[in-house]
């Protein structure tokens, strides 16, 4: 179950990284970073 959970978090993290790469507007990129931080913390098992 834990592996499935982390796979989902990893998928979403990669997805947000891709969005960050595609996005051109500065403030939208900053917004993506805010969400990305939560997913990175989860990915690094800070729970």
């Amino acid at each position, binding site marked *: 179950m834990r592996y499935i959970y982390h796979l989902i978090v990893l998928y979403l993290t990669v997805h947000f990284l891709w969005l960050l790469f595609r996005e051109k507007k*500065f403030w939208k990129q*900053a917004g993506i970073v805010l969400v990305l931080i939560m997913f990175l913390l989860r990915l690094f098992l800070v729970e």
Partner: protein
Amino acid sequence: MPTRDTREHEEEAAKSLRSFASLRMTKFFFFAALALLVSFLTGREFLSMRADDVILPGPGLTAARALSDYFPALKNTPGDTPVYVFAGDREGGHMLITGGAHPNEPAGYVTSVVLAENIRVARGKVVIIPRANASGFTHSDPQEGSPQRFPIATARGERWFRLGSRVTNPVHQWPDPTIYVNPKGQTLAGIEARNLNRAYPGKAGGNLTEKVAYGIMALIAAERIDIGVDLHESAPEYPVINAIVFHENSADIAATAQMELQAEGLEFRLEASPPNLRGLSHREWGDAAGIRAVLLETPNASHGRLKGKPTVSLILDGRDKYYEKAARLGRLFVPFGPAGIPLKDRVVRHLAGLKAILTALGEVDPEKAMEVESLPPASRVGTEGIGAFLR
């Protein structure tokens, strides 16, 4: 065949594209690095909550144990916690003192640390568990914005203490049931499944909190405890405050201690443990283990519902304008003036209460009399501060 103008145009377009791609990559790496940096800094700060405070037991310590020594199922779990034993040379009563059953009630925790770092027992035995719910110290109450820790100034610099949550960390015990039925069959809200002071007498195969409660009951049996004192705090708007809550088998001790405290100018009300309120230390230590059981409550503005901004100052100085107003409106059960109710005064009350209970035990049951030396005098803690009695 492309003309010279077309070639130049294509080269410029390619250059512009490379420049754009380069800017995009730079921005991407900047933001990705920013996310990593913030994750690292916040993650490190968050995980620091799980580092145990340093407790330096005094020379009177005769044995340093862990709760898992009494109940091995707790070994290597977040519920395991240090146990300090101070045994005298002569036979007398055996007292258990627990602090930190609710880690958001700092006076009980700090008092038990002060005791562990100072006392020497000549007659009888004192067993201290400063962080009864160790898991509760590893997180903070959500949506409260509470400080993670607070400092106490000592002669050698500041000592920092954790301000935890009332309940076990959900990372260690999850999920909460919709309705919690505790080991004695009391029906409670789901979150109370993580409340140590609703989980007595515990269950060997229960959830983590019930296992901790079971471990404390095993300790009571193994150390042949005669009386247990559970140190707590409650919000100033809560009626059971500045109180000695007692099991009916300890009414004589509680009443004697109250008189002694009144003689010293400290008002404590007496509250009998309700027989139908199950799972609490002052009920189950008496019913299930057959020992005398009391619980001390002091007023703590930092975990009340009427408080303003939760700050380190609110924990230490206990000053809050909203509680002042509530007191003026007659909504509190304790006096609350501009001076507030500082942590120092609450520790003084706990120390004075413990001393009065020790004296009362000797008067009520002379065979169980105890002699505890180097017990920090409440009056000196009041004048010199808590830090003067921390190593």
